[in-house]
């Protein structure tokens, strides 16, 4: 590989990182939506860009998204499927004037996640190959187990004192049933969308954007709009309330959770990190935020590292699948280049996210929160309309209604992930529900 090529590779990673950072600030906009457009342009315009350089630019975008979208999730309350778990703790941090500290903890987790990908994944390359060979024929069982875990982990619920036994029983089951209702409705929505979406064919590659935004982002914003929501003045600390143990514990749990999610279809970073945090018996928000940062990065970026891993070439995640349309990873040199790009994009993204957070921590409290939420909602609606047409807005509205169920009944929002889990699990199990729903 020539030196000039390596320098071009670095340049493309930096370009991708900057583009990804700017776009990730837009609430509701997932990097995969943008990458989809980039790929469309790449294919149709016949752009004369070396495919590997294009890959590195997309990786730069992905890494920066994994870091910077935290900002949008925390300051604009517009999470996605993997940041919804951090919404509650980060809201607490915001109210305690520690929004920036939350960002630093998540970014630290993300940083350790990048290290895990670039240092440990290659070391355990052969082990991962063996694990994949074992897991591959049983993926549907594993997804089924994840679903069972999500449903069963609702128990037990303790609502403390109650008027009488009947009232206690009703209160306990109310949230559980609301959670199951959410799971059922989100799952049904997923089956419908995967089988016969109403989104026009020319927008079909963005078909998941509308339901995910509806389930996680718009429902949160609507909650903010109807509740008393204020952001106090934020402090910019020089240190964070955590000890090396907290960071290590969170990072290890998050990285393993993210790796699990990167391996198993339908399991996203949030679920992977959440399960890992249970598995590692995490206590406290600090460690959880670190683990979520790590999990998110390992999930998104790890998937692409696994794609280039010489013994594995695992196609997981929309980026790996998109790249595979025009590029086949072949050499160890490409893998080294990808890992160099991931590490470089990780460093740049880390500093970008910290400086953006500092800026927003100073600015956001000065803005009327209602106005902020309305503006964010407006941006999301416009984006969904542009990306998925008016049919996407209908799907988003339905998804928002489903996303409000756990918000209003205080049950787990993670059940909304059934929109991805259920159709993929059914598909991998060979079960076709669509004909019974008149979707064929």
């Amino acid at each position, binding site marked *: 590989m020539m030196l000039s090529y390596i320098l071009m590779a670095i340049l493309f990673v930096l370009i991708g990182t900057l583009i990804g950072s700017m776009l990730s600030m837009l609430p509701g906009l997932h990097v995969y939506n943008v990458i989809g457009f980039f790929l469309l342009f790449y294919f149709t315009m016949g752009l004369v860009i070396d495919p590997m350089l294009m890959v590195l630019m997309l990786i730069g975008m992905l890494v920066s998204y994994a870091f910077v979208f935290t900002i949008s999730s925390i300051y604009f309350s517009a999470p996605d499927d993997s940041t919804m778990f951090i919404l509650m703790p980060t809201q607490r941090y915001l109210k305690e004037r520690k929004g920036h500290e939350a960002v630093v903890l998540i970014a630290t987790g993300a940083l350790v996640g990048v290290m895990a990908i670039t240092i440990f994944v290659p070391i355990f390359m052969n082990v991962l190959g063996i694990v994949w060979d074992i897991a591959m024929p049983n993926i549907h069982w594993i997804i089924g187990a994840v679903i069972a875990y999500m449903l069963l982990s609702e128990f037990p619920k303790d609502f403390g004192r109650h008027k009488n036994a009947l009232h206690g029983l009703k209160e306990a089951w109310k949230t559980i049933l609301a959670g199951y209702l959410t799971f059922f409705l989100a799952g049904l929505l997923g089956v419908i969308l995967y089988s016969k979406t109403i989104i026009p064919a020319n927008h079909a590659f963005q078909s998941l954007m509308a339901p995910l935004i509806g389930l996680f982002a718009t429902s949160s914003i609507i909650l903010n709009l109807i509740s008393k929501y204020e952001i106090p003045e934020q402090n910019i600390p020089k240190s964070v309330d955590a000890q090396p143990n907290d960071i290590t514990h969170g990072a290890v749990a998050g990285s393993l959770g993210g790796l699990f999610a990167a391996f198993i279809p339908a399991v996203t970073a949030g679920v992977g990190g959440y399960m890992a945090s249970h598995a590692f018996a995490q206590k406290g928000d600090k460690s959880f935020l670190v683990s979520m940062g790590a999990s998110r990065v390992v999930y998104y970026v790890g998937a692409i590292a696994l794609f280039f891993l010489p013994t594995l070439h695992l196609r997981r995640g929309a980026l790996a699948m998109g790249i595979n349309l025009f590029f086949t990873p072949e050499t160890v040199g490409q893998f080294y*280049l990808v890992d160099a790009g991931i590490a470089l994009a990780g*460093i740049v993204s880390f500093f970008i996210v910290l400086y953006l957070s500092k800026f927003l921590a100073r600015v956001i409290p000065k803005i009327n929160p209602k106005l902020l939420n309305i503006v964010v909602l407006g941006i999301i609606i416009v984006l969904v309309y542009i990306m998925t047409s008016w049919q996407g807005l209908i799907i988003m509205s339905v998804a928002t209604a489903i996303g409000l169920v756990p918000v209003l009944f205080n049950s787990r929002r993670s059940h909304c992930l059934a929109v991805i889990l259920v159709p993929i699990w059914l598909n991998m199990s060979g079960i076709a529900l669509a004909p019974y729903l008149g979707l064929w």
Partner: protein
Amino acid sequence: MKCPSCGLEIPDDTVICPYCTAHVKKRVRIKTLYILALSLIIVSSVYATLAYTNSGVGVSKIANLSIDDNYRFVHVQGTVTGYPFAYETPYGVSQIGFTISDGTGQLTVKIYSNLVAQAVKEHKVPGLGDWVDVQGTFSYGTRKSLTVNDLYLLQIKHTGYSEENVNSIASATPWTFKNNEPVTLKGNITGVRQYSFGYIATIDNRVDLLIPKAYTALNMLNLRELGSGVVQFYGALLFYQPVKPSSDYTTVNLSEVMKAPESYNRTNVHIPWADVLAKNDTAGTLLIRANETNITVYAKDVRRYRVGDHVEIQGKFVNYHGEWEISVLRKTDFITTPSWEVVAHPSFKVIEKKSYVNETPERLNSLVRISGVVADFRPLSSGYLITLWSNNSSYSVYVENVMSVSGALNSGEKIVVKGMVTEYNGALEIKVRAYTDDSVEVIA
């Protein structure tokens, strides 16, 4: 003092902030995290160095690639043996390819989709005789092939070109050059013919330049530009034999044959190279000279051969009325005029740009524009012949590009001819070359 997390005022010696529950003492400095972040520079640098120094996979011999290597990433090296091909679609060229040989076997290298445009831009479309180092995905089938996924994994080396001229190539024997030998020569395009595999352009009426279709499809070689003046061409030599000799015929040295002709009587002989010394159209004979020995060749029709031509002969060595001669009468017998031709490389230099000038056709290879009246119009098998009356003189115009004349021209029609002054049978004529800017325009 102030809580380092929330910034609110808290009593001195407080361990846990009463407002935000943050630990005041046991904390990690953000600057320490910066060091953690910057340590990734080392990781990035190590990987970049590994990518830089990584030599990839070892070189495989083409003969050793088997079905077990199907879809595997392989590395091969070899010389381009055929000329490149291109698959054209209504949307452009979707695939290009070329064949390489490493001495053990042959393999077709394929480049698809977006990489095609990039390959053109980066001059990574090879020519015949180029040395190629390529890595890609191997496919085992009736023909072994390799798909290039990254152009940086395709390296092409153009070996040194020897400077030749049209005369040295036109008069060269089969033993003067070797196939695939790289050469460069200067000249004018004096004619263009189209074939399924591409175009054959004649340089200075002497040497054929084979332009593979791939180069014109990819717009790497533009015939209009090539026909616009004196051009330095690059390519590889290929000995063209119109008919391949049969193994049923023995290649002989004519001087050895004539030492003991009886032993060769009624045998099938092949003479790879001979000069035509004389011909007799009525008798149907050619007098040829090969290996310093003369012999008569009898054939049905010898009108197309000219004295001075180089011919290749396959026929029966016979004694006819006491004279030894070669009889070329059977289906498998032949007399052909083999020649060295140049397979174009996708690079050229226009040395002298010419423009059409309003003058009478007097300077050979000049581009002229001449207007006049059609005195005579004759369709030929390969074009049209026009006799043009202009400035009280008549000129012969040969239209190679039949598309440039829509239907027959009538005597008396006024036309403007743009073409090149060439020589035919010792006389100058204007040639309207195909696929160039030459044209015939009816103005009244």
